[in-house]
């Protein structure tokens, strides 16, 4: 390899989409302008992986992360505790309460047990107990691995979300999507490697905030930050030409722009100018590829039916789920859907019912859709929130109504698809769903397992920053949850 092109390959830090077509001088330009393709080598990947990655053969090529922001109640969805009926309104034994409970309920004089008012039934070959609130997800239980004993460190939304997504409660670290983009790049040459979606949520939901750090790049280069695909306005920021300016105007302008920039390069010699030329061309391509992506009109009626009527409303959870499939189909590495409104401190049955109604069908459809297309083997789907909810009621408790406070000691997440063994349950909790009694799984271990499915050894996947070997999975030693692996 000649020294100059080798040097140019080393420049990867400086550009979002890598050095697509970055060759010496004019050749790159001709390629980029789509002329005279004969003889030009195939372009390098737009999002190249880090050298040496993946560490080993990956089971999953992409991740779809369904984040239920606010903390869904494990007790009303997955962690079936029929025995609680006998404890209705009785005080939770004080031996259960630790020091670290939120000050929203730590001042309560009693901690009355609130059994779930919802019916549970067994589903699938695996006989999984699922709440009546999730009739659609109940149909895919044989594809998912349910973890009942996930635990986290934080007790409040902001630090818990930050921890879940970055491995640290303190803002400033890289998000999991940006880590994966950084390590593995992506096969999507016309789209970003990491896309974040924020669907609408029911009005009844208690909509806790999201934070850009949940998809930000922290100390990693900014090009790894999730690109937010928006449901209103430009799907990607600044994607549309200004009013009165059309695609042919842009083409004409870019032709002159590229010509001038090429002259600058010849005069100045800065390789960054070549990168800039390619990025303007990539921008032009994005202007076509993103609208194509968001156009669901070519989806079959059967597919649309599977996701439900809401799929036709842009910005709904169902349409976001379908978009997620379309994104991974096009090679996008990570799609993160952040659905809000799960923070049910009061009026939980009503709020949670609406939350499930909004997401259940789209979630199940996504897994089924991927499976029907043979994509589920390549795509890892993760579902969960930043923590669970307490067995004791917050506020007044009746047979029909109750609220629940934050509960970080055990909550439920599930994983499905690439690298994951379907139809299993991992971990068991005590009779009050208050502490794990077998196989606790720290949130960092979920992330370690996710990375493992992607062919990444989480311990070796580090970057030096502020004097530390930063890892998504933190400094404390954690393990991949082997039992979940196919």
């Amino acid at each position, binding site marked *: 390899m000649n020294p100059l092109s080798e040097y140019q390959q080393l420049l990867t830090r400086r550009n979002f*989409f890598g050095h697509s077509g970055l060759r010496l001088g004019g050749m790159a330009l001709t390629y980029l302008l789509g002329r005279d393709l004969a003889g030009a080598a195939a372009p390098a990947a737009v999002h190249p992986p880090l050298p040496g990655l993946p560490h080993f053969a990956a089971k999953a090529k992409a991740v779809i992360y369904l984040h239920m922001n606010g903390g869904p109640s494990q007790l009303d969805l997955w962690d079936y505790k029929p025995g609680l009926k006998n404890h209705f309104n009785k005080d939770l034994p004080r031996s259960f309460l630790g020091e670290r409970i939120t000050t929203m309920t730590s001042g309560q004089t009693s901690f009355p047990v609130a059994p779930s008012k919802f019916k549970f039934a067994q589903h699938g070959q695996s006989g999984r107990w699922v709440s009546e609130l999730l009739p659609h997800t109940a149909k895919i239980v044989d594809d998912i691995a349910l973890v009942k004993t996930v635990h986290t460190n934080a007790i*409040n939304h902001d630090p818990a979300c930050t921890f879940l997504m970055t491995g640290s409660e303190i803002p400033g670290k890289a998000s999991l999507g940006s880590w994966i983009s950084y390590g593995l790049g992506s096969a999507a040459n016309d789209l970003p490697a990491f896309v974040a979606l924020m669907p609408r949520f029911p009005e009844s939901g208690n909509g806790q905030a999201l934070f850009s*750090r949940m998809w930000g790049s922290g100390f990693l280069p900014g090009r790894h930050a999730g690109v937010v695909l928006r449901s209103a306005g430009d799907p990607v920021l*600044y994607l549309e030409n200004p009013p009165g300016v059309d695609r042919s105007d842009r083409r004409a*302008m870019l032709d002159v722009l590229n010509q*001038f920039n090429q*002259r600058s390069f010849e005069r100045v010699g800065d390789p960054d100018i070549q990168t800039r030329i390619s*990025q303007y061309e990539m921008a032009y391509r994005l202007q076509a590829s993103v609208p194509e992506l968001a156009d669901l009109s070519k989806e079959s009626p059967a597919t649309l039916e599977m996701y439900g009527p809401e799929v036709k409303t842009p910005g709904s959870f169902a349409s976001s789920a379908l978009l997620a499939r379309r994104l991974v189909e096009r090679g996008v590495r990570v799609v993160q859907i952040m659905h809000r409104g799960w923070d049910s401190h009061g009026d939980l049955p009503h709020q949670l019912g609406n939350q499930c109604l909004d997401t259940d069908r789209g979630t199940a459809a996504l897994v089924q859709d991927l499976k029907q297309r043979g994509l589920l083997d390549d795509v890892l789907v993760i579902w969960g929130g930043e923590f669970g909810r307490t067995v004791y009621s917050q506020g007044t408790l009746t047979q029909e109504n109750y609220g629940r406070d*934050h509960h970080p000691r055990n909550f439920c997440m599930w994983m499905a698809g690439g690298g994951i063994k379907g139809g299993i349950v991992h971990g068991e909790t005590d009779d009050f769903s208050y502490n794990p009694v077998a196989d606790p799984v720290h949130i960092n271990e979920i992330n370690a397992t996710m990375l493992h499915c992607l062919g990444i050894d989480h311990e070796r996947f580090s970057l030096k920053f502020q*004097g530390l070997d930063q890892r998504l999975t933190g400094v404390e030693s954690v393990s991949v949850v082997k039992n979940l692996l196919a």
Partner: protein
Amino acid sequence: MSRPWLLSGLYFLTCVPAGAEQAAEAGIVSYNRDIRPILSDKCFACHGMDSKKRKADLRLDVLEEAVKPLKEGTPLVPGNPDASLVWQRIVSVDPEEVMPPPDSHKTLKAEEKEILRRWISQGAAYQKHWAFEPPVHRVLPDPETQPLLDQLVDARLDAANLIPLAAAERPVLIRRVSFALTGLPPSLEEREQFLGDNHPEAYERMVDRYLASPRYGEEMARHWLDVARYADTHGLHLDNERQMWAYRDWVVRAFNNNQPFDQFTVEQLAGDLLPEATQEQLIATGFNRCNVTTGEGGSIDAEQLFRYAVDRASTTAQTWLGLTVGCAACHDHKYDPVSQKEFYSFYAFFHSNADPAMDGNTLLTNPVMKIKPPDYQTKVAAFEEKRDALQAALNAKTATVGYQDPAEQNPPPEVTETEVIWFDDAFPAGAQTGVAGHPQQLVEKPAPVASGQRSLKRSGEGMAQDYYQSGAAPLEVPAGGRVFLQVYLDPQDTPEEIMIQFHTGEWLHRAWWGQDIIPFGAVGTTQRFGAGPLPETGKWVPLEVEASSMGLLPGMKISGIAFTVHGGTAYFDRLGIKGRLDPATDPSRSFTAWRKSVAGKDLPEVPAALRGWLKEGPDKERSGIELQQLRGYYLQNVCAGTAAALVAEKGALKEASKELEAYLESIPSTFIFRDLEQPRDSFVMKRGQYDQPGEKVEPGTPAVLPPLARAGTRANRLDLARWLVAPEHPLVARVTVNRFWQQVFGTGLVKSSHDFGTQGDLPSHPELLDGLALHFQKSGWNVKGLMRLMLISQTFRRTSAAPAEAWQADPDNRWLARGSRFRLDAEQLRDQALFAGGLLDLTMGGRGVNPYQPPNIWEPVAYTGSNTRNYVQSAGTGVHRRSLYTFYKRTAPAPFMINFDAPSREQACTRRERSNTPLQALQLMNDVQHFEAARALAERTLLLGGATPESRIGFACRTVLNREPTEEERVALLQFQQSRLEKYRVAPAEALKAITFGTVKPSDVLKEPELASWTLVANLLLNLDEAVTRP
């Protein structure tokens, strides 16, 4: 300038890292240069400072430990590699023995092994890490003069066989200087002035003009505010607005006034501890209030206070020491000599903060300070004088008012009863009603109706309600008020709960019947009064509740009513209020009754002098004067019977008090830093856990650095600040000079400007760094002087246009043979476009503004209750202020900033990345901010750029690129403009759309197709690599 030792000619194309090359040259291995980086990277994690993680009881970071014999042998035998256990292990082939062990995923390269072997054979000499040794003049005795800087750079170039390039041309130079010092491109006038200046020091004079510009402070502040993590919101959870922009403006002033950097340091870290601290010095302490804080319900105070102190300690260390001490929050630092105990000693300086654990989600979280303008005292005195005069007039009038206490009347006055209906058949006239649940249903018979023609039917599966909170005339609560209403519950669909609510500016008054499910209001207060069980179903039942039990007190004005159910159907009818007035016992009529009613109470609203007398009650003997004062207060402020007689005087007084209040309120405040009166005890927190205190610590500094001098028995922040800027401190001047160098040249002499520890990069030019650091201290920490020194150097003036071989030989330009060329920062890009279009509003200071922003940046992420949830674009030229003044919301920063690598300001950022992405291209082409600016530039071009297309192209190129176009460019641009003009002539509607994008109206003297075509030309120019780059 001649450099006799540098011969012009061919480039020597070598790219050997300088360290290795020099070591090879000298043959002598240097611990700091060659060995420590290897040991630090590969060995110290297990054999370094961290005592808890140390393996095999072996410590390799200090000689005394490394030569101590162990069971298996002696780790290091100076002079004899083969006898050294370390060497034996390095070369071992046994996976059980070899070091580093395979499971560490660390390996030594062959050349690293070789250099370690040579180091041991040369005697294994250790050195203290370079940055902890004081800076020294190693080359020449006097570093005062500019050529020295160039000499030190050139000496390195010489050693690396690189040839420095000639100076750039003047148009390039002025653009480079203008951006470096003011963050803006040169104006055409500034350009002409410089190009036409024949003085031998024309360049220096141009630099001095920019140093004197008020824009200088703004550009300098921008970099500092990244380090200080300044923003306009709290940063966590609700991420509500906070008011501390006065600190931002203080930083701008400090740079413009060229405040010496040592004072700049002391005032920010300890301005509050200076004797007779001035307002400016207190504003400066905002530095330590810039950290993110939370107000999230449920948080644990001790945990938050711990985090704030960790953040403040880490940021201070990062900023002034260039050390990443944050690691030592959890364990001894693995690489730098900062033990966990030392970290917590440093943390102890910041741990007695007076600001609370919970920020309260308010604009002003204490401690805060009003920023008083110079005429504050005079203004307040004038307001007070006016108010006092009006009070005297009121007192005089009061003395003339006839009043007889009804309690003393015989026979006593009559008792009157009143009844007012608020709801019957309809809500009060004008009420803007709303619902939660199905639409409003006012039903007629045969549906249940208790009174009149209609009742209000309300059903819902969960909470549902009918309400209004505006539009109707206010309803007054009478004395002795009792709210009544009629309710009919559907026996087939009985609600679990019914509720009535009243709005008095906020929804604060409720009564409920049935089960307490609806989660409104604080339990056990008048906001959520439990009035009893559900009434019987299937019939109209009258309900009644004391107004006071809902906190509705006589005289209160009700602005809204709500009828609420949960899980069922109810009919509501005939809601109203009864009042009962007995003047003899009513405190608002009877002086005696009032005194009885307040006996034993502390009334904060009453003047202090009267408070005690009132508390003692009416039975206590009072002098005539005392009684007169009490009576005067009563008649003026409480008595309903005399209100009418005093209305004019009271109105005037109230007006004057309001003026004073309005003035006081118009004065902004800012966050300041203070300590608690009684310091908190600080402890080593085991494993960095807030609830695991270990050994107690006192405020102190790391032992590896010079000792701290204390003024009192306990060291405080002022001692710390003075310690930092003491002449013997080895780090502060170096770290600071390096950051300014990075600002000017794009990369620091120490590339890792945030880390001067052993994990950081070595300086590219150690003598230069030391020379500048010493010079900076000696100059009295003169920042403008330092900036000038760097900018007038030949090194800075070099052209950045270089042959490919030069780029290849030194891709990052660490050796500075050419000028540094880099992409402009986010703020500079936007400011440049606005400047070129003549749109930039140069107003300085004040509350952050909201420029153009695409919809749905804040809204989709914010918590429902956040006051920064809805983005409201600023009015007028607020959208065109300098980017420094853009409102910084941390959880969703402005996309035009983030897209170009601006930090979120959640933690200190000493160096921004410079990425190059397609999303940036989209922004510069399509963002309304840039397109409107292009349109404005097109207008200027057409109006000021002469009459011919050629002269106009020249004008536009001079404005944006600071140079004349080449012939090729002129032709291409004109062709482009003509082709677009043809398009727009055919489609004038499209032209109109293009030129009306934005809020500023286009000039009406220009033809639309013409202006639109030139807008695209301007848009093109502003997108050129040359335009987005500091040349």
